[in-house]
């Protein structure tokens, strides 16, 4: 029975961790929709949703319930299997990214070293890029299977946007990787905790580029062309209704949460609480402080995402492509060259 010869406790631990992370991302995404509407309201001198429950806190539940009770429409002549596969893929890829994020340090719980990271693979960042590049499929398959020209156009628009900005995103990260010398997110975080400064100090331009590219990757304004409701006839989810539409929208909010966590981990020290020396705290306290720090940073970034959305108007498509190819990629290359030179001269 060699089949059963693996560490069961390990498996159970990871399974629990995965379940917890997924439910946390779902809840965060749910309340991100609420926060989005609140932020939108506040920026426009309104109050945002405040009727469902105290301060409107039950609004996301009401929205979800509404989506569940909507009629499911599958257009005639659409490809039924692919039509359902589209949103499922979107959701699946959104969930998958969280596997390599270190949510906290290692902690001793019940005689076991529990690692708050599902998988510490030595190519962590590349894994994220891989999953992000797969995120295009949900969009494309959904758009094509709808059997609607406008959906297809939007899917093409979205896919080419995602591919274009992935390049700039990767290039902006290479400079950071030159400094850290590792692709593992755990190592990068540890370096920031032990070093004096977070990576944003060494890589301000890289941070900015990465931030802009993640806005584009998450289809957030000002780059939300794949789902421009008013001027571009909505987006790839035009034909979707009910919870399938909900999946697309929800996947986007999960993506936003995860990409904010990734930015926090890469550039803002991950679970490093500023001005606190984690090594002096006891295991569980350090863990809680770390979680607090990581989530604080993430929520701040989510707020900035929303703030940007309700401030900037949408780019035109040619402007978007110009910015991506002629603006961000040369800047990322410049950043790379400068970082390379500095690394070369300082690390004799």
């Amino acid at each position, binding site marked *: 029975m*060699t089949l059963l010869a693996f560490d069961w406790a390990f498996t159970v631990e990871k399974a629990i961790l995965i379940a917890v992370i997924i439910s946390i991302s779902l809840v965060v995404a749910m309340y991100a929709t609420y926060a989005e509407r609140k932020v939108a309201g506040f920026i426009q001198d309104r109050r945002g949703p405040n009727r469902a429950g105290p301060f409107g806190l039950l609004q996301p539940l009401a929205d979800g319930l509404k989506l569940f009770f909507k009629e499911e429409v599958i257009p005639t002549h659409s490809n039924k299997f692919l039509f359902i596969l589209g949103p499922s893929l979107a959701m699946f890829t959104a969930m998958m990214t969280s596997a390599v994020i270190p949510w906290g340090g290692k902690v001793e719980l019940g005689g076991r070293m529990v690692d708050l990271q599902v998988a510490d693979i030595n190519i962590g960042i590349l894994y994220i890029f891989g999953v992000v590049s797969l995120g295009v499929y949900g969009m*494309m398959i959904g758009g094509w299977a709808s059997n609607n020209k406008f959906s297809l156009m939007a899917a093409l628009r979205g*896919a080419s946007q995602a591919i274009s900005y992935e390049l700039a995103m990767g290039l902006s990260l290479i400079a950071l990787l030159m400094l850290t010398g590792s692709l593992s997110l755990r190592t990068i975080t540890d370096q920031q905790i032990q070093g004096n400064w977070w990576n944003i100090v060494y890589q301000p331009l890289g941070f900015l580029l990465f931030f802009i590219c993640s806005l584009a990757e998450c289809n957030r304004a000002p780059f939300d062309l794949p789902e421009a409701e008013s001027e571009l006839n909505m987006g790839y989810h035009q034909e979707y209704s009910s919870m399938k539409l909900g999946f697309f929208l929800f996947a986007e909010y999960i993506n936003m949460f995860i990409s904010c966590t990734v930015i926090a981990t890469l550039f803002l020290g991950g679970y490093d609480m500023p001005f606190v020396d984690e090594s002096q705290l006891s295991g569980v306290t350090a863990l809680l402080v770390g979680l607090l720090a990581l989530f604080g940073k993430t929520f701040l970034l989510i707020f900035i995402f929303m703030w940007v959305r309700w401030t900037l108007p949408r780019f035109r498509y040619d402007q978007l492509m110009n910015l991506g190819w002629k603006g961000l990629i040369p800047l990322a290359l410049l950043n790379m060259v400068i970082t390379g030179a500095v690394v070369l001269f300082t690390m004799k």
Partner: protein
Amino acid sequence: MGITQLLFWLLTTLTLGSALMVIFSKNPVYSILWLIITFFAISGHYVLLNAQFLAIVNIIVYAGAIMVLFLFVVMLMNLNMPSSPLKNKWLMFAGVISGGSLLLVLVAALKDTEAMRNGILMQTGDIGLIHNLGKVLFKDYILPFEISSVLFLSAMIGAVVIGKKA
């Protein structure tokens, strides 16, 4: 049978099965989706060989980028055109012969490779890890590596020139 071997057989079946489905699918979009699954299965093999970098790069480059372009093209094609069956019997015959000879060449070439003789080392060896791979690429194979990048650059410039002309 260990878990690794079980995974190996599973992945192999998946790879071959989905590769066959690429050919047998009537709908080109399905073909591409099967091809993507094939790439995933191959990436799984890389992981079994402890070559995580190759696995993920395979996914990023092939499944994530090239297949998206394939999908672009197929989705913009008019799929409603009735596909004409191969009329020319001789063409079919020629196809079978050329395919068969390609298979023959491949088998002959792979028969005597090192891996075939020694057997593949599962989960051992760390040549596929990013550190070692980088060292090998930038020390032992620096010239071919740079030449291939120049090739890519020229291809890119060529594409831009053609695009500007149109």
